[in-house]
């Protein structure tokens, strides 16, 4: 009896240590894999997992941008709007150029993509100016910009989807493959890699952590805190805008109504991955895993035929669970530290 109890307490200690080190994500991933494998036999197939990867691309790209905002101690609630505005502006520009010069397909695609990404990034520029130079709280600034951007997207389209883009756009960036890998996945992989190098191999990346970790200390150490904050929101918007263009290619239309769930899902992906809401803590590779986890759960729930309304309930609950787990983790850190 005593031996069994001792063994049990040893197991809990190991689990506790693992929890403190790794956070909640590995446990959730494991639970999701087990549950959905039991619920649907189609879940754990390479075909379906490739599907998950492809479906998660958009959230992954938005989440790595959102992570920057969280790292500096803020967040960006306007990522959904940025997605929509990029989609609408990009589709309109592309369709207009294509209509004027039907033979210049790749020129129209290039101009369209640049226009969409520029339009989305502009929202980030405004967010950055507000947060970094006028000391508006990120909450108010991005909430306000979410409304502004959504309004502009609806105004541009009258609420109607934008058609008329060259078919090659969707074929390449929506459904295309390169070396057997879906193009959107390649784009996401490239962005993640580029951001990884930027964050962990250059001084500028360290500055994001420093500004979130202690803004005053960063400033006294010669770091341009305003510039870093500004760049945070510009980069965050840039990533969201790229996701918007990729999603536009997938849908083959420019839509003002996409991305509404992105703010919640991207913040959830980050928080589940252990990014601190207080700023300064979080790893890029974990955020990618966090976004994949959310994609996995959504896919699993679809296969298990769980209604889409209920799915949003599950997502919200997961987000809150992750925050609670983070608090418990902090408490364990304190006790294990002594």
């Amino acid at each position: 009896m005593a031996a069994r109890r001792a063994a049990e307490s040893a197991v809990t200690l190991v689990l506790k240590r693992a929890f403190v080190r790794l956070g909640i994500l590995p446990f959730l991933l494991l639970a999701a894999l087990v549950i959905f494998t039991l619920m649907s036999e189609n879940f754990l197939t390479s075909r379906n997992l490739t599907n998950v990867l492809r479906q998660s691309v958009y959230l992954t790209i938005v989440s790595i941008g959102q992570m920057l905002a969280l790292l500096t101690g803020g967040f960006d609630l306007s990522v959904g709007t940025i997605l929509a505005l990029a989609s609408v502006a990009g589709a309109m520009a592309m369709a207009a150029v294509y209509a004027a010069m039907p033979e210049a397909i790749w020129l129209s695609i290039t101009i369209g993509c640049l226009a969409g990404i520029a339009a989305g990034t502009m929202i980030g520029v405004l967010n950055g100016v507000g947060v970094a130079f006028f000391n508006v709280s990120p909450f108010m600034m991005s909430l306000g910009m979410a409304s502004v951007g959504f309004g502009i997207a609806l105004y541009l389209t009258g609420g109607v989807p934008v058609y008329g883009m060259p078919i090659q756009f969707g074929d390449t960036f929506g459904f295309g493959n390169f070396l057997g890998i879906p193009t959107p996945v390649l784009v996401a992989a490239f962005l993640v890699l580029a951001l990884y190098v930027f964050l962990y191999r250059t001084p500028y990346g360290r500055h994001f952590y420093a500004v979130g970790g202690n803004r005053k200390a960063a400033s006294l150490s010669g770091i341009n805190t305003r510039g870093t904050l500004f760049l945070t929101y510009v980069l965050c918007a840039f990533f969201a805008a790229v996701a918007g263009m990729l999603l536009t290619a997938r849908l083959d239309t420019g839509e003002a109504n996409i991305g509404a769930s992105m703010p919640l899902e991207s913040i959830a992906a980050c928080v589940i991955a252990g990014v601190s809401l207080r700023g300064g803590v979080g790893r890029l590779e974990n955020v990618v895993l966090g976004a994949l986890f959310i994609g996995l759960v959504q896919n699993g729930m679809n296969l298990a035929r769980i209604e889409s309304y209920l799915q949003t309930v599950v997502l919200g609950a997961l987000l809150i669970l992750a925050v609670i787990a983070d608090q418990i983790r902090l408490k364990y850190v304190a006790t294990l530290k002594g």
Partner: protein
Amino acid sequence: MDGTSSVSGEVLIAACSITKDYPGVRALDAVDFDVRAGEVHLLFGENGAGKSTLISILAGAAKPTSGTLWFRGREISLHSVHDARELGISAVFQDFSLVAQMTVEENLFLGEEPRRGAFLDRLRSREHAREILDELDFRIDPAARVDHLTRAEQQMVEIAKAFRSDLSVLILDEPTASLTNHETDQLFKLICELTARGIGIVYITHRMAEIQQIGSRITVLRDGRYVDTVNAQSASEEDLVQLMTGREVGEIFPARIPQTEGEMVLKVENLSTRDESVNGVSVEVKSGEIVGLAGLVGSGKSELMQAAFGAKEIVAGRVHLFGRESTGHGPKRNIQDGFLYLPSDRRTEGLMMMRSARENVALAALDVEPFSSGPILTLGGERRAVGDLADQVNLQPRQIERTADQFSGGNQQKVMLARSLTRDFRLIAFDEPTVGVDVGTRAAIYEFIVELVRHGVAIILISSDLPEILHLSNRAYVFYRGRVQAELFGAALSEEAVLAHLFEREGA
């Protein structure tokens, strides 16, 4: 235990053979401690000696792993701070438990609001608050918001909170750490009144001068163990240092470095800041010397260096750094030019508490070798460089990947000091470098500063600690209300002279 005979009050609270284990660490090892009515019992020891753990057990905030607590001869067990309060045991910790946006009276009765039926009884609450404040002779308006009060007044509110119910033991954790001399005097007067009423006081401090001023008995802890209890009036400073560190420290201060006539490093002329904390101040610093900036909290001594460093806005005056005008240059430019300012408050201004020691040390040098080459960080070079610096400042434990908040106060300070060695600084301003650190670390920090001077670095030492200024600096400026009151050097740099200028011309 020769000191105990001189105190003869009733034993209020006694801790017998208290042991406290945290996973992997024994914070307290069979420690005995008692407080008698009418005494000030000082707890003395280096950072990490177990003082904080002991008082949190006495205050009910932590539970001992083994050992017993006795209150007025009865065995008790405390499950919460509330339990301790019921018995009249209250603690005032360094971090105040006040809600800044609420008024004094709201804070006083937080959690125990006087009520009439289901509603707040504002009238009674106001009256009761006045009674408590009057009884303690605190001149504070009960309707004032806490964030409008000075740090000392906030401390008074915190103490007043302890008087909601009948108080028998009051625990004060470094209460004077952020008080000015005048405020400290006020606090000591209050402590005398409380002991006269038969209240027992547990008092933690790092300041030697306070011991003889108010102490009755001193209990010294080292590494979680009880060392000795001595009479405060008869114990000498040397005795205490030896008890506390377990070794002969002898002189805390290193030998003074002879003044060498160096070139001008920093020249500040008639500088004023936008927030008017500094008014028309001129200061000169030459290489190879330590220049002390003395003054009370808020006298403009820190603010001057922040302005010269570019962290505070300048409205008038000029700054020359290494012979070139640098007025209005920001911290980044100044750091690149070889000037570093290390702030006094390491938690709020100095360190990223949840990032590693490595990142904290490297923070101001990410743009130079060996931390980076071109636009790319050199992670290996960084690790080696920070590792070497950790050895140099004797970081304990020497784990550079530990987050800053997992180090003791003294070692957090060392992390910050190591930053001054990450690149070729020729002028370093240390703002209160020894606040809240133990004697051993203090000696190490002084040695560190002197070593920098030997290598030709010019040092500005901003300090409220008078002995520090007197023993280390070659020259000192005394600040008072945003102005330089005196420049002292040589024989004129004496305790009397500095003190005279700290308060002189009040109201002028």
